[in-house]
């Protein structure tokens, strides 16, 4: 366990500050100068060394403060990215739904187009046939003509019947007259014959 963390620590330190320039060296220098200051003799040197140590310390603090700020910033960036990621996921899901909606709409539109085309196809066929009103009018006029003609036919037939009957009457009267004339002739012949026999009879 200890070996692992040591490795990690060494790796991290090498990554961050491999060449020894920067904070690590500063801290080592500080420790060395502290020891030197403790062992120093004169007042002035000690004071200047003290000032120098304070400045090194403040430099170290400054760089630490900077790293802390950077760390904060990274954390906040991470949060920001998480937020954006979630938003994008939501919008992807929304887009999926919209796509499904649009697909349904496409199907609907296709059905409508199909219906329109069927309508058009039938309309084309219907256009070939003549207009219904005209045909009705023609039918009416034809019907009227037909009626008229049938009236005429009836009246002509009636007249024909009448004339036939009249001729019939005429012919039958003529026949009767003939008959009567023939009868009359026969009667007159018979009378003449009787008269002739009466004339010959009184002679003896």
């Amino acid at each position, binding site marked *: 366990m200890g070996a692992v963390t040591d490795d990690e620590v060494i790796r991290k330190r090498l990554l961050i500050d491999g060449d020894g320039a920067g904070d690590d060296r500063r801290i080592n220098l500080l420790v060395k100068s502290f020891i030197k200051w403790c062992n120093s003799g004169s007042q002035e040197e000690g004071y200047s060394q003290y000032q120098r140590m304070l400045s090194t310390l403040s430099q170290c603090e400054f760089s630490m403060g900077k790293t802390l700020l950077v760390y904060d910033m990274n954390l906040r960036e991470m949060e920001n990215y998480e937020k954006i990621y979630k938003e994008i996921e939501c919008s992807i899901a929304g887009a999926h739904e919209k796509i499904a909606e649009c697909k349904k709409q496409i*199907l609907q539109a296709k059905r409508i187009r*199909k219906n329109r085309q069927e309508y*058009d*196809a039938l309309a084309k066929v219907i256009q070939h046939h003549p207009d219904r009103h005209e045909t009705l009018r023609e039918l009416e006029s034809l019907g009227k003509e037909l009626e008229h003609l049938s009236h005429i036919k009836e009246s002509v037939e009636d007249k024909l019947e009448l004339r036939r009957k009249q001729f019939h009457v005429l012919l039958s009267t003529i026949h009767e007259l003939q008959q009567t004339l023939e009868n009359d002739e026969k009667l007159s012949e018979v009378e003449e014959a009787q008269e002739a026999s009466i004339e010959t009879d009184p002679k003896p």
Partner: protein
Amino acid sequence: MHPRGADYLVDRRCTDFPSSNHLPPQSRAGDHNGRVAEYILRKLVPKNLGPKKPVVTFQAHDGPVYSMVSTDRHLLSAGDGEVKAWLWAEILKKGCKELWQRQPPYRTSLEVPEINALLLVPKENSLILAGGDCQLHTMDLETGTFTRALRGHTDYVHCLALRERSPEVLSGGEDGAVRLWDLRTAKEVQTIEVCKHEECSRPHNGRWIGCLATDSDWMVCGGGPALTLWHLRSSTPTTIFPIRAPQKHVTFYQDLILSAGQGLCVNQWQLSGELKAQVPGSSLGLLSLSLNQQPAAPECKVLTDTGNSCRMDVFTNLGYRAFPLSF
């Protein structure tokens, strides 16, 4: 979620997708030599873009396989005069045996007509077969008995389609007529003589109706005569699609009509007769298309096509060919 499987026929006939819940996405193809091969479509993201090989191939029929159709648990394949059923779950194991095999009653026992088309009627749980004997036979899938034989065609039947709203079946055949049969009364309800209409008949190609598709009010048929859209209630041809090559398979999809025939491409038409797109496939002449549209597996929504070569194409997006499979 278990995606649904797909099966299709290569090298001449149909492709079909089973509506099974329990299997990984598979495709199947049957061919002229009677073999049926099966592929598994995983996620439709191919690792290499080269052609894929089938997972299982087995000899289904002694003769050619003309048509296939699938239900939840079975695959039905039809060849010369007989229909065989196979269980999807068993097919993955080697050496599977057919579940049952039936022959519809033919007029003479010497006739062995080919069964060109199979159609499932899910409401009645029955299967309709039609083929070389010019009749449509209905078979109940539970009992296996042949219930009706619809006669009326004068020449053999090529294709069948189901009209969902009124339970009617449309059949198109070599005699150039599309006949509508009512399944409840077992009678012919309507006949559309496609070859007699001048706008769409092309006598130099013949009168045969190679493909049929219906959308309850509308019907598309093609083959010898030009590919035409008909309005069924008035039996009038409304749009003629300007393509010279006879089309062998046609289907409705969303607001488009997909057709495939002689010629490299799968054609996408709008109902007004405009060609929206032509997507080239791998075979020089295409014979069959199949769409997997079952709602349980939307990621397996593919179109496959097959034709005169040993390759089949899978389209994930109708605009381009995703990858080929080889038989």
